[in-house]
């Protein structure tokens, strides 16, 4: 198969002019990227604050009220209802009016003094976020409240408190890269990748089919162009557009969402280009196999779903059974996610991401090769 740079150049020029003159396409492309970026970034968060809480305070003394205050002050809970007994509380949970209920038994203050107090927290087990958040929050607040109470009582009695304030082993924590465990810092580097993977795959998928359905393809086929030239000419201008969208998204991530960038920006963009090339190549493979735009669209939609759920973006890949793991292995995002998080958040360099980068490079070569082979230079 002969390859000619002049032909390639002419094809690239045509594609570029067509894209540049299609204002609507560019607006739509960029617009979609940014809308999705905003919606997903603001929605994606697992930390649950302000869980609606029903309070059944059967003690009604200063200690019990202090405990409720402690829970509310932690921001994890909002005391929205005050009820009489456990039955009412369960009912409120059943109705979905609250996600948790606190039952404080009578004589709370006295029991605390005697080191024999307890409370019951009911959690809505049908809501996984409420449960996880509520569980650890309740435990945390209870522990610190308890320690505070015992410290106070010790101070009152004049005894000497043990230095650690309770337990023989204490843990101090150092959280790397994202000290506040800000969800957005975690989500955004990944989301940008996901949005672009979806867009790149989809656009590449319909690109080829669109030309074919316009009858331009027949004219071009009657010339000496080769498959590889056609494939590359579709990929290169689109990569630039995607890289542009990527760059702006990263800019928004840094300056609007305030997620600090730690690594080498040049390396990051080279990796991004590699990632985009692999996504476009994948889209072209879909395109060469699809016969109508509908088929191409459906395939890319399914792929988008995979990209969302199986690449490790929001759900961990460790522990996935074999088939979902394998499917996730086919998505370029799985690899770019590690690269992106590595460079963006951890600030690591090539020595850590070269493995994934190499995989993406090989991936790109393979998909370009496959789509070139699949692309029929005839009408049937």
């Amino acid at each position, binding site marked *: 198969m002969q390859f000619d740079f002049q032909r390639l150049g002419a094809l690239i020029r045509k594609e570029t002019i067509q894209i540049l003159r299609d204002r609507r396409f560019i607006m739509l492309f960029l617009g979609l990227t940014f809308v999705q970026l905003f919606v997903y970034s603001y929605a*994606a968060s697992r930390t649950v*604050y302000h869980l609606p809480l029903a309070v059944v305070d059967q003690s009604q003394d200063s200690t019990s009220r202090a405990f409720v205050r402690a829970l509310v002050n932690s921001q994890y809970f909002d005391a929205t209802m005050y009820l009489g007994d456990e039955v009412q509380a369960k009912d409120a949970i059943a109705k979905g009016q609250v996600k948790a209920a606190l039952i404080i038994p009578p004589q709370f203050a006295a029991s605390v003094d005697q080191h024999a107090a307890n409370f019951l927290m009911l959690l809505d087990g*049908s809501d996984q976020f409420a449960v996880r958040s509520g569980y650890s929050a309740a435990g945390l607040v209870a522990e610190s409240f308890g320690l505070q109470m015992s410290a106070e009582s010790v101070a009152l009695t004049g005894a000497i408190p043990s230095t650690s304030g309770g337990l*023989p082993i204490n843990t101090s924590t150092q959280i790397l890269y994202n000290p506040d*465990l800000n969800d957005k810092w975690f989500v955004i580097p990944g989301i940008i990748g996901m949005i672009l993977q979806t867009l790149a795959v989809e656009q590449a998928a319909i690109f080829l089919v669109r030309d074919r359905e316009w009858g331009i393809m027949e004219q071009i086929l009657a010339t000496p162009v080769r498959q590889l030239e056609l494939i590359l000419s579709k990929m290169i201008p689109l990569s630039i557009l995607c890289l542009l969208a990527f760059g702006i998204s990263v800019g928004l991530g840094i300056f609007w969402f305030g997620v600090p960038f730690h690594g080498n920006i040049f390396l990051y963009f080279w990796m991004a280009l590699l990632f985009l090339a692999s996504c476009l190549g994948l889209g072209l493979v879909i395109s060469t196999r699809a016969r109508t735009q509908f088929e191409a669209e459906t395939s890319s939609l399914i792929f988008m779903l995979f990209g969302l759920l199986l690449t490790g973006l929001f759900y961990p890949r460790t522990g996935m059974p074999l088939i979902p793991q394998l499917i996730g292995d086919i998505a370029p995002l799985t690899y770019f996610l590690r690269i992106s998080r590595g460079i963006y958040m951890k600030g690591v360099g090539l020595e*850590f991401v070269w493995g994934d980068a190499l995989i993406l490079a090989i991936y790109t070569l393979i998909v370009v090769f496959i789509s070139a082979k699949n692309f029929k230079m005839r009408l049937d």
Partner: protein
Amino acid sequence: MLRRTWAITQKEFIQLLHFPIVLIGLTVGVALELILFAFAIHNNVTHVPMVISDQSRSEASSSYLNAFTDSADFDIVAMVPDQAGVIRAIDSGQASIGLVIPVDFATRVQQKDANVLMVVDGSDSFDAQSAYGNAAAISQQYAISLAPQQLSPLESHIQILYNPDLEDMWFIVPGFGAFLLYGIALKLTAFAIVREREAGTIEALLVTPIRPIELMLGKMIPNLCVAILNLVLTYSVGMLIFGVPFRGSLLLFSALASLFAIGSLGLGLAISSVSQSQVQANQLASLTNIAVMFVSGFMFPVYNLPLILRAFGYIMPMTFFLPIVNGIITKGVGLNDLWTPVLSLAALTIIIFYFSARSFRQNLD
């Protein structure tokens, strides 16, 4: 009027059956999707890779570390000499969490004054929180076991209703089934309407005495049947394979699920009415599909959503159907506990239908 609607319905049924592949693909495909994803998605974080720097190397530290290895939550993947080594391991992605046990650990434990440093990979904040929480809990348990008398004066009892073992599947399957149904409904209507418009047969129909509303209904009914079939299949698969219990009333669920299906179909109708081509309809449908996942409360909690996104969620039937699904399946509650979401869903469905009928009619002209 009924007769004309029935005629259209029959025609649509026949057309639908012309593509048995599409039908089979949809129903079987959906069941497969459910199985695939439900097995894959989980939030439980176990076997988290952990790196240790045990500078004490004493019996006390070994005993402490055993608490971690004994739990299934952590897998110790490396032992490094110092804190820098721990950080490097986390940098490279080899581990997500690390423990640094200081040299004087053993003596300090005797003095009830020991300190351990936990280094957490914050770049993965979703998992970091769980990992960190788990590790802290394990550490605390161990510490308590050493000094049982140093208990906090306050003992917490936490009772998890409905799903005490926190079975992941019970969280995922009900919601995911609804999500798949929504996707199907969108695809079906988009396919049905735009296909006709592109083929130009809509014009031929318009010359007949058919009224737009009859056309619309005629198209909806076969799709509704397919959607319901799908629903039954999906949830049966969910119950059988994943052992998710169905605690509520099947009848109530079917009725409300049909309501949801109608609302989703209506939404699909609206989308295809405003789309000028098959491609556009598909793109729009896919986008709302994904967006719904984010704002309806399925993937992420609704409480933290900023106002705009919350409002957007309120025009999606899924946002109201999710509490219904969870309510009936997992909580086992009845209608009198679900008034709020049911009424909201009903109201939303009516509104959607009104608008889609209007834009459908407008589009025909």
